[in-house]
């Protein structure tokens, strides 16, 4: 298979550095002005980048796990996105140093006067929290390291045994991924309201993560294809598959979100409902309603017809839309703990600079060192020939 050796232009990285710089400035100033607000905004950014990083890793693993061929030409995009994972070690630091601003349960005097927090203390305490943070990032990093190492090696060696190795890795990764992702979601976001609990929370975050990552992969792949960085043999059928997967996982997100809501709504127990009550008063109800329409109703109706999913232009627009929807979803999950009514100031704009900027930097760095297409993969030919 002929590989396309058209290098990614520098301006991607340059634009990335510029955006990241602006984002970083906003974050730093925001921390200096109001540490608590800065910390919550930064948690929002961190969870978004975690979504993108582990989502990319999960899609890579998913391809090996189910033996998909059509997604092979896009796999490098997922791997590049997973390149955010090593950065999480640094990105998590500001959160570790502002734990007291974020989490109510980190205050010993609050725990001492609260029987519920006291009972939850064996799980919600600083030491165990740190162990879990390290565990999650370590698991993601190790699998990222081995997956990409094998994949990269295959570009030159063309050895099918490496694919088999990655299949084995993906089998081990699948359960660990769900455990670590649930832990991350529960620790960083659910424990913001330590009295509240929802057993479906991890799945909810997973659904949003996959939707967001698929959207980014779709956007980048279409952009690369339009500018001639991917094989011209790549037809609409592969992009249609991406669009279908995006559509499917978005319905999954709606299904999970509704499952969580209807149980709490029906049981009507104050210890569970207050989490939704917080999101239904003082202006938050507009955000909640907006989330329902932006994340589910509108994309559902737009992505439903086949013609939209085979049209690269509409698909590209919808993928940007879905990334924004996931940002809104995370905002809705995190920020009500910080403020009784929705806040949107210059502090909140940080994510729109920092996150895309960082993704561009990582992508540019990776693309300058590796092939954009896994040229050694034995399934690549089948992937390029894929027709519906």
């Amino acid at each position, binding site marked *: 298979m002929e590989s396309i050796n058209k290098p990614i232009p520098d301006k991607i990285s340059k634009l990335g550095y510029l955006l990241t710089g602006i984002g970083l400035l906003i974050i730093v100033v925001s921390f200096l002005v109001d540490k608590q607000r800065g910390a919550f905004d930064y948690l929002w950014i961190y969870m978004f980048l975690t979504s993108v990083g582990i989502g990319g890793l999960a899609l890579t693993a998913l391809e090996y796990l189910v033996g998909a061929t059509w997604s092979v030409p896009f796999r490098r995009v997922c791997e590049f996105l997973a390149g955010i994972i090593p950065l999480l070690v640094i990105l998590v630091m500001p959160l570790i140093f502002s734990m007291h601003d974020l989490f109510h349960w980190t205050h010993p005097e609050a725990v001492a006067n609260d029987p519920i927090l006291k009972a939850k203390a064996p799980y919600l305490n600083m030491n165990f929290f740190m162990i879990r943070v390290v565990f999650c990032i370590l698991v993601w990093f190790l699998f990222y390291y081995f997956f990409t190492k094998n994949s990269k090696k295959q570009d030159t060696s063309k050895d099918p045994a490496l694919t088999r190795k990655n299949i084995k890795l993906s089998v081990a990764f699948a359960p660990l991924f769900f455990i670590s992702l649930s832990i991350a979601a529960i620790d960083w976001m659910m424990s913001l309201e330590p009295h509240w609990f929802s057993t479906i929370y991890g799945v909810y975050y997973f659904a949003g993560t996959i939707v967001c990552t698929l959207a980014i992969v779709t956007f980048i792949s279409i952009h690369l294809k339009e500018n001639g960085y991917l094989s011209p043999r790549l037809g609409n059928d592969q992009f249609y598959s991406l669009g279908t997967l995006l559509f499917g996982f978005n319905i999954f997100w709606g299904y999970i979100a*509704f499952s969580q809501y*209807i149980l709490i709504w*029906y049981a009507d127990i104050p210890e569970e409902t207050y989490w939704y009550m917080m999101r239904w008063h003082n202006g938050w109800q507009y955000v909640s309603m907006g989330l329902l329409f932006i994340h589910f109703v509108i994309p559902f109706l737009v992505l*439903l*017809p*086949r*013609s939209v999913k085979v049209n690269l232009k509409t698909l590209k627009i919808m993928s940007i839309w879905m990334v924004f929807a996931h940002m809104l979803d995370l905002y809705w999950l995190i920020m009500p703990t910080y403020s009784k009514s929705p806040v949107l100031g210059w502090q909140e704009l940080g994510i729109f600079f920092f996150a895309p900027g960082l993704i561009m930097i990582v992508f540019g760095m990776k693309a300058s060192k590796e092939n954009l297409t896994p040229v050694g993969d034995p399934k690549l030919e089948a992937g390029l020939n*894929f*027709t*519906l």
Partner: protein
Amino acid sequence: MLKKILKLDEELAQDVPRSHKVHSVAALFDTPDEITHAARETSNAGYDKFDVYTPYPLHGMDAAMRMKDTNIGKFAFLAGLTGITVAVSMIGWMSGIDYQNIIGGKPYFNLTASIPIMFELTILLTGLFCVFGMLLLWNKLPQISNPLHDTNFMKYASSTRFGVAIEAEDAQFDVEKVKAFLAGVGGKDIEVVYYPEENIQKTSPIFEKKFIYLLIVVAVVTALGGYGAIGKLVNILPFDWMHNQFRVNPQTRSDIFKDGRSMQRPVDGTVARGFMPYEYTGMPDSLVKLLSNPVPMNEFSIERGKKQYNTYCSPCHGYFGAGDSRMNNQFPNPPTLHSKKVRDWADGNIYNVMTNGQNVMPSYAKQISRDDRWAIVNYIRVLQRAENAKDTDLP
């Protein structure tokens, strides 16, 4: 075995009388690549009324045939909309208007609880509409067979080879030209398929009287048979859980006793255990009041009296003896137990009324035991005292 079946097939195929009206020209190909190539060539040549027949789905065939987007999506979408509308109207009518019930403090009609049903009905109706739509619109239901059936062509196209058939409806159809074209793209065993006689002459066999009668007979037999069978089937107890046992039921036959009845009169001159004959029936109040209350007034007897009072007396006299139960105005009004007359009665008088009844009040001797009647007397005294409490009663 396979050869036998194929041979039988061939014999059957020749049995179908064919007319002289051409349905299509069909050709067979040996490999998927050949058929894909042929399909592409056929659509390139400008034919659009043709179809490809393969034993299994071939990826990429849609593109090769230049198939246009079908309307199935729109059809399914409308079916789904129908489903969601049916669900909303059904629940809106049932729980919002016709049979309002408060469940868990929720509004009569609420969208959240209806969403699962909307979801289910959307999918159900979409599925059903698509299946029936396929039968009616795509398979053209009154027509029960396709002219390509029972041909040599279809025998192979559905087992080991791949086929393409260009239909006579096509604008540029010409038997000889099509034959030459198909031979040109590598088609083998080129065959001209004619309509079977019955397809053009008769109306569809579905509308034949015999068939419709058959349907009616089947429907009637199934309905009656089902009705009869279900009547029997539901009466079969897989486990009887001791429903049937050797036991003497009241007012039935029993072989245990000589007279064959399950219920027997007590032996003359005996009394049941715990039964105390009451010999003051019909005596004047002045005599009855001499009866003394054998049940002491204490916490236990009051508690017992309260329980029995609430069960047997309160439906008429009210929970606090004021005669204010819900029987008021629906029945001769029950009297209050706080009147001066009742307060001044001795315990024996109250006991006598309970035992023998008074005016419309029947005797309660059968329902309430002797000791419990005395306990009720104690409780009535408590109610009376509470109603007419003195200052000295206050702590």
